[in-house]
């Protein structure tokens, strides 16, 4: 028990401090690296909860794909972070005020947090017995049966994202010469090539 408690607090502290560093660090590349650390610690929290699958998903998808993509974008885009930062400083007082108000309100909420009496039971009904089934298998069973509707819709949303990316960026450029491999292969040397016997001293 004690070990779990300690690791919970370690992970939480790392999450909070690295989240803060994402926002305040001067170099955007460092920000992304802090973000990766935050994702990893979140994965740690999921492992503590016994949700290995979600933890691994977080590492593979967020750290492996999303964060690396962020890194690419940050390095490839030529953004003047200095001017962005001055904007940031301009709105800092009001943003800080709103943050403090929200924080106070949220602490009010969680100070008196309680759940409905039926909530625990409602959650227990849909949670399978962990001695019978691993959580990856349990997820697989519901995703492709009970939640197939949501799963398919997620697919449609990704399709929209793909169509959107193509519509907004791809351009037809008719003036560009493209490599046409087939026509290269099917060129006949007899037609394309002419061998001329040039006499020396005369030229063509």
């Amino acid at each position, binding site marked *: 028990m004690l070990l779990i408690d300690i690791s919970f607090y370690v992970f939480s502290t790392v999450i909070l401090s690295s989240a803060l560093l994402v926002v305040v660090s001067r170099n955007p590349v460092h920000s992304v690296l802090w973000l990766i650390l935050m994702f990893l610690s979140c994965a740690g929290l999921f492992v503590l909860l016994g949700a290995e699958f979600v933890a691994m998903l977080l590492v593979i998808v967020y750290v492996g794909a999303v964060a690396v993509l962020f890194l690419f974008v940050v390095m490839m885009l030529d953004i003047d972070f200095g001017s962005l930062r001055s904007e940031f400083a301009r709105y800092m007082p009001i943003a800080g005020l709103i943050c403090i108000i929200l924080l106070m*309100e949220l602490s009010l909420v969680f100070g008196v947090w309680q*759940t409905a009496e*039926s909530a625990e*039971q409602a959650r227990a009904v849909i949670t*399978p017995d962990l001695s019978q089934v691993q959580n990856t298998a349990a997820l697989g069973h519901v995703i492709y049966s009970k939640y197939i509707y949501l799963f398919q819709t997620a697919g449609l949303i990704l399709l929209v*994202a793909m*169509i959107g990316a193509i*519509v*907004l960026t791809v351009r037809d450029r008719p003036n560009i010469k493209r490599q046409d491999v087939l026509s290269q292969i099917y060129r006949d040397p007899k037609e394309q090539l002419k061998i001329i016997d040039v006499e020396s001293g005369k030229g063509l």
Partner: protein
Amino acid sequence: MNGSSYNIFNSSNYFGWSETQGVLEVIQILLPEIVLAVFSMIVLLGAVYSRKNKTTSIVFWGTATTFLLVSIFIIFRGAAVYTAFGGAFIDDLFSRYLKVLILLSAAIILMLSQDFLKRNNLFKFEYPILMTLSVVGMMMMVSAGDLMSLYMGLELQSLSLYVLASFSRDSVRSTEAGLKYFVLGALSSGMLLYGSSLIYGYSGSTVFSEIFITASANEKSLGFVFGLVFITIGMAFKVSAVPFHMWTPDVYEGAPTPVTAFLATAPKVAAMGLFARVVHDAFGGAFNDWSQILILLSVLSMLFGSIAAIGQKDIKRLMAYSSISHMGFALMGLTSGGLEGVQSMLIYMAIYVMMNIGTFAFIISMEVDGKPVSEINSLQMYSKTNPGRSMALLILMFSLAGIPPLLGFFGKFYVLKAAITSELYLLATAGVIASVIGAFYYLRIIYYIYFGENPRALDQTHSLFNQTVLVISALAMVLGVVNLFGLEFVSEIAANALVN
């Protein structure tokens, strides 16, 4: 563990979901959505693999026809209530009413867009496909019976709309509109999700019917109310109710005009339907908690929408403020609660869509020297050159202002009646004041058309279809007063399906 010993189909209630519905039955229930989704994918493949220029026109007509056929199919579905996926999808008369409204308005707007898109080099087959996917999202929204399906539907429709808003990618305004819409939309989704997580934490379920049971208890935790507030904020963003309206004028102005027309009609209907669905199906027991939020949203939207529109010089911005104000009125109906409240909201939305389609049929065709314009100034003395269209516009503007005896008046009448029945006198008074203020800017447009000073020549390039829609819509404003096209009866049974 041994994988083969565990079988979901043997333990039917294991996941709180009984295996009573076969695949065929589920497909039958979701047929309209499935047809549209599959249609969009087939068309996408077909259009990509064929010669682009020839097929685009066919795709436009085909999509509009499909919308029409699907809406006819939904109309003939009868009164039965179907649910699927353990209550995540509800197909009742309420959702069918809204789906028909969404499909018909989307079909008409799609046909109205054609000419504008052709002239501005935006005539691409992706436009109707994105519209179809967005319509699928809207249909999911009004059929949502679970916080998760609500969110998925909402994201599907919004994501398509973000792309459509920046469809004119070479125009800085359009890209800016898309980006602004995207960022603020993401913010609102975040709020909605945060609220959903609080609600789930409190009630232990995401299904509306389960939430309803916990929401009906007398003692509610502060966290539950917080979740309710966050979800309401998320939805208020989508219906652009003040103070969550900031994106509306900029997006309406920057987006290509046909997209603006689309934004002003079908998504508003879907978001309002979703709003009604959530507050009744999920939070019906917490009426006092949400009704005060809605009253505030409603009053602010009506007044701010009317006052801020006064200074506008751009007709698209003006229509944005006008839609904010109209959403305030629709929210007033919803706030009144009960059968009459929902019914008045449904009537209001139907009339609002009819008026907006007519007005946008004209705005889409506003051009000077082949370039689309949207300054109100360019309408000066329009009646001299085009008495017919001016007359149609006059009727539509009067109707938007809610001047009797036109159809727009009856929309406001039902909403105000519902508010007075539930003894929300102050709200009703604010509504009347707002509609008087709002009349000013509608009348100003008419003033320009009939008594303006420097005549500016708008092009005479109205396509036949746009002209017909404009005239039909104006005629509907006059003829509709006889029996509201049976809206009263239809909306009553639709509202009945939701409230009971």
